[in-house]
């Protein structure tokens, strides 16, 4: 396996939140000791429910937000200080796509101008070369120059997301962070964009961090998947294997909660309770109040992510050692 392009070690990030106007401020641990490595040309999928810290992780990896603790290394080097020339050069190699393409585009500019902007900012190529590059990018995302002359309002949701993708690819980045890129799209359009993303990844040997709550889409596009719960990674492993044989009780519930045509809801694990508030993180394993298999130890001791055989790592007191010792009868 090639060395990782992106290496995240033990990053944490907390925010101060005040309850009420005169309330005491409490620390909300959005991300707490997350470590990841993404190999060149591979996709790491990050799944979890709202408030699990997956978007914050993405922002820290991109350097949009500094971590309180821990470090992000890109291509073997630590992230440069924001604002410096080295940082600028590094940032041209990493780009991002978000959920809402309309919010990411300027409604008053033709989309071709917006695709060209990163080239102008980073001073890449002559004016004619930039024009050529814009046409090439539009073709790459399966649109025509005629689409480029339009304004965002005159494009459909799927076309807008293609424009955002084209703009992100303008500087020929090595690494792309996609935060819920297809969640706002209809199923048939979603499939178009997912296929396009898969194709482009192979053509341009892109490395992706793919953040989504949709297990199906994540599995489709990822090599490795990490599951987050309240700021921590609770399970990580290769995509097919993780969804076929989830080990952590939370992953099991998540996979079981994903509705499938042709299967009635019999045998589904329905978790009790709401996802807990990140500001009031339970003691011990954060998942224990909702866990159907919790034991006394779970309430007091925080489980650490440890290898359980293969490339799987699980943070759960009940899942230990090689996979032969699995306790569930599924």
């Amino acid at each position: 396996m090639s060395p990782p392009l992106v290496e995240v070690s033990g990053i944490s990030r907390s925010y101060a939140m005040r309850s009420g106007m005169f309330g005491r401020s409490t620390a909300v641990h959005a991300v707490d000791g997350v470590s990841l490595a993404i190999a060149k040309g591979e996709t790491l999928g990050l799944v979890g429910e709202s408030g699990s810290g997956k978007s914050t992780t993405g922002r820290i990896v991109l350097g949009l937000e500094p971590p309180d603790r821990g470090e992000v290394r890109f291509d073997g080097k630590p992230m440069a200080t924001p604002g410096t020339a080295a940082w600028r050069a590094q940032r041209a190699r990493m780009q991002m796509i978000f959920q809402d393409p309309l919010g990411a585009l300027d409604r008053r500019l033709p989309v071709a101008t917006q695709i060209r902007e990163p080239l102008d900012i980073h001073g890449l190529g002559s004016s004619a070369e930039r024009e050529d590059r814009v046409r090439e990018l539009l073709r790459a995302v399966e649109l025509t120059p005629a689409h480029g002359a339009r304004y965002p309002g005159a494009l459909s949701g799927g076309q807008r997301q293609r424009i955002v993708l084209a703009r992100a690819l303008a500087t020929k980045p090595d690494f792309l962070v996609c935060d819920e890129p297809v969640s706002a799209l209809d199923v048939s359009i979603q499939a178009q964009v997912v296929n396009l993303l898969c194709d482009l990844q192979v053509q341009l040997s892109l490395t992706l961090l793919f953040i989504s709550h949709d297990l199906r889409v994540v599995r489709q596009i990822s090599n490795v998947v990490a599951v987050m719960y309240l700021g921590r990674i609770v399970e990580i492993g290769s995509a097919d294997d993780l969804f076929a044989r989830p080990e952590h009780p939370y992953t099991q519930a998540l996979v079981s909660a994903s509705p499938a045509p042709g299967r009635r809801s019999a045998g589904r694990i329905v978790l009790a309770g709401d996802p807990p508030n990140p500001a009031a993180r339970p003691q011990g394993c954060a998942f224990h109040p909702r866990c159907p298999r919790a034991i006394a130890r779970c309430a007091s001791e925080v489980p650490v992510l440890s290898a359980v055989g293969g490339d799987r790592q699980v943070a759960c007191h009940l899942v230990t050692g090689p996979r032969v010792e699995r306790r569930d009868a599924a």
Partner: protein
Amino acid sequence: MSPLVSIQGLSVAFNGVPVLRGVDIALGKGEALGLVGESGSGKSVTWLAALGLLPRHARVSGSVRLDGRELLGAPATELDRVRGGRVAMIFQDPASALNPVLTIRKQLCEALALHRDLQGEAVKAEAKRLLDLVGIPDAARRLSAYPHEFSGGQVQRIMIAMALAGNPDVLIADEPTTALDATIQAQILELLSTIRREMSMAMVLISHDLGVVAENCDRVAVMYAGRIVEQAPSNQLFADPVHPYAQGLIGALPPLDGPRRRLTAIPGTVPDPAHMPGGCAFAPRCALAEEACGLGAPSLAPIANDRTVACIRAEASRRALLGIAAE
């Protein structure tokens, strides 16, 4: 058995632009019907029009009958008894459906006072019973809380409680779990199916999520560009879709297990309602389309027991289906 709700030839136009172009739906007592389709296909408009909830400039025609009584053009007093009483509706965004400055008790009691002959203590007792029913812990105390004090999943539970206040015969659930996290979605769907069984209530589940509909409904209708294109028992539809659009929707869904395959994306986009193609609205995106598809819009025709499809190219698969059924 005559259906509980029978919609025939329902059409809606906004400012002369047709968005619903002749929808027929029959809903039996206690039945769970799923309505799937992409945004703009008319899933929500169908029921808003049926209940007279569309703005005045919408032109609605056709027929909507509840227990044989016509609802379209019915006097407001009659509609008021139907809406919230016999037919209740819950929406995607529960937080905006509740009044943020009134307590839950006040809002639940308002619904109860409107639809039931209850007074004083009986109202409060009933409000508490409803909250218990939808699984809000410590219901008696939580009644005096405000909407912001509940989580998203709990607010949707409260909306369900309010919808149940009038003891409805039909619950229209419009994307009830779209805004919720996966584990909470599972909770709400389980709650809905339990309540439906216990109260023998009919339910229409509107969703863009094929999985949600497949698991929770007896029968599914697939909508495209203001029309129903296929209707079938849910297990049959998902095992063996006939309409090319239904096939496309199911092929576009990434599998959660088994080998990964390239998704079969439907090319192009949904047509603009103001510039609807002549003939079958799906023809421009359809791989099977032939010249005849552009000539006239196909109507829903039966292809098997309890299955209808609106596609002239379905003939071949229709014969195959009937052949298998005859053996």
